[in-house]
């Protein structure tokens, strides 16, 4: 039998506290000072949140924060979209658990690992707490509960029976996301028999998420192409990519947003940027692409030259070698920086409020300008910060999950 590791390797919570926080007299003093400071700040915040803050500014405007001035009689489309999103999320989540990555020979998958139980509990808590906090009507409360239940049900069903799916269906399932994006676009903007809702009527979290996802989805392939172009052997392609990247990175986003409102109409084929909202979306995309290109370039530089040589010597054409050999390895390296860029992009959408769009921040500014809610800035900004933090945390968690899935702690071959 192997000897047990010494107890100091895995100390209990009290031992850990004593060793890490009160290891010496100075450590103890610093720890006590910091803990006192944190406690005072937390108490102050709690006192303000409970006794002074007036949260009606949030609950009275919750629809405005969520979707802006989206016409009331068309909002069922957004509910439908939310339901579909919940369904797709539950399905994908369950399948990720049911189907371990191919080729790995680990223990059989567990239906509900501990992290998943936590996530499910948080979802349920949110579903129970949100309607109460926002003082929603019973009809809307019921909808939120139904959507949460649907998500968890789909998660459970996919986790339970995912392995029984035929391989063809399994391979097709990731396609529901791009499909859902297209369906969502139609549901939001109208067309195909639905009443048109002009982009100027989109707002709040809806507009913020729409802009962010649009820019994230498009800036990524664009950034990869730019990064490849920058390393190309064709001088024109190389210089063009370099010029583009350096130009974009040398200008502040707000300048480009204003510039885009004026000149994008000439640069893009008509119909692609018909109004202020789409022009802003394209500027965000082009802006982020330059930064993604730099992240991908660092990833490409980390792939040994021998990888491309091996692929080429096996007869793979350049596109095949890039897609199947070089880029998967480069993306593994570039993923954290790329997701960091996505997070920045999400936060940069707040600049849209400066060019007059009613994204989350723009909506917040109109709410705060309402005389009925004068002086309630702190509440609004705090909620905004928490909302953004949740979105960014979700992106970060997703990225970390993807990293472990792509790279199950294997030493890279030289």
């Amino acid at each position, binding site marked *: 039998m192997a000897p047990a590791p010494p107890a100091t390797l895995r100390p209990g919570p009290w031992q850990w506290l004593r060793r890490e926080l009160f290891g010496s007299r100075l450590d103890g003093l610093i720890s006590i000072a910091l803990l006192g400071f944190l406690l005072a700040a937390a108490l102050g915040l709690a006192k303000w949140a409970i006794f002074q803050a007036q949260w009606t500014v949030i609950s009275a405007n919750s629809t405005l924060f969520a979707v802006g001035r989206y016409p009331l009689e068309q909002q069922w489309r957004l509910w439908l979209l939310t339901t579909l999103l919940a369904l797709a999320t539950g399905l994908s989540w369950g399948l990720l658990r049911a189907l371990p990555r191919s*080729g790995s020979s680990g223990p059989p998958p567990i239906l509900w690992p501990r992290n998943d139980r936590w996530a499910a509990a948080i979802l349920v808590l949110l579903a129970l707490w949100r309607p109460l906090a926002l003082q929603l009507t019973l009809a809307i409360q019921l909808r939120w509960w139904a959507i949460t239940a649907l998500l968890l049900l789909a998660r459970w069903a996919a986790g339970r029976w995912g392995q029984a799916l035929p391989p063809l269906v399994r391979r097709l399932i990731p396609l529901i996301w791009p499909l859902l994006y297209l369906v969502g676009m139609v549901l939001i903007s109208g067309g195909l028999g639905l009443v048109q809702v002009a982009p100027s009527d989109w707002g709040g979290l809806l507009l913020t998420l729409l802009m962010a996802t649009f820019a994230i989805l498009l800036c990524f392939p664009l950034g990869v192409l730019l990064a490849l172009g920058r390393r190309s052997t064709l001088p024109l392609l190389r210089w063009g990519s370099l010029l583009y990247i350096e130009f974009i990175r040398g200008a502040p986003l707000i300048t480009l947003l204003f510039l885009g409102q004026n000149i994008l109409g000439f640069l893009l084929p008509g119909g692609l940027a018909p109004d202020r909202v789409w022009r802003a979306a394209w500027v965000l995309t082009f802006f982020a692409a330059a930064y993604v290109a730099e992240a991908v370039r660092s990833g490409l530089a980390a792939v040994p030259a021998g990888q491309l040589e091996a*692929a080429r010597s*096996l007869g793979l054409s350049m596109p*095949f070698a890039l897609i199947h050999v070089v880029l*998967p390895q480069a993306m593994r390296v570039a993923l954290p920086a790329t997701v960091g860029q996505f997070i920045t992009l999400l936060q940069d959408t707040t600049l849209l409020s400066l060019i007059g769009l009613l994204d989350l921040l723009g909506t917040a500014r109109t709410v705060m300008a309402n005389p009925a809610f004068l002086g309630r800035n702190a509440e609004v900004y705090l909620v905004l910060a928490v909302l953004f933090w949740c979105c960014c945390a979700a992106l970060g968690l997703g990225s970390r999950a993807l990293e472990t899935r792509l790279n199950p702690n294997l030493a*890279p*071959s030289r």
Partner: protein
Amino acid sequence: MTTPAAVMIEARGVEKWYPNGFHALRGVDLTVHQGEVVVIMGPSGSGKSTFLRTFNALEDFQQGSIEVDGIPLSDDLRQIDAVRREVGMVFQQFNLFPHLSVLDNLTLAPVLVRKLPKQAVQRRALELLDRVGIAEQAHKYPGQLSGGQQQRVAIARSLCMEPRVMLFDEPTSALDPEMVQEVLEVMQGLAQDGMTMVVVTHEVRFARQVAHRVVLMDGGMVVEIAPPEQFFSNPQHERSKQFLRQIG
């Protein structure tokens, strides 16, 4: 050679300058026949790896001509791709694809390039892995294998494309000493099966036992070409004698 065999590689007056002006190959000639095993030796910087890498266009050259299996190497990308399909290459650093399982390393190129059905390629890949003695590692990743195992996978990966020629660029130089033999044995088996091979190596014993001819290169030129028994016991050139003394 006792029986006249078809010419597999024909290099004539190959000259190469690196972009920095270094004259790496100075008019190199070499003819490799079908089924022949040619070992290229020489001090580092002699141009032996560069020369080998011109055979599948991993290095370009400015003057001279190279024909592989009747296909002339030129700037024409289609011809380069055609040559690369016929020529397998094994690298010093293995260059396995770390993000793919061993089996996928083998099947990637045949499925993508030769457009063969995946099932058939997988069967063939498993046979090849069995032949190099690591069938049971098929579903592991390269990073989980030892250096010797990785190099044997790399050989199997090249063989899976059913090449007509195999190039080996110092295949045992990056290996721990106890793993050299297992790789050399696989190469020896390959030679016995009649594979045409060009091997850049410092392994004298391998050259003695397996090679049909030994080539000594120095300063970007071929110094001597001779059968191994003659090259090692009775070298003709002063530079060859000096080289053998240094590695001896």
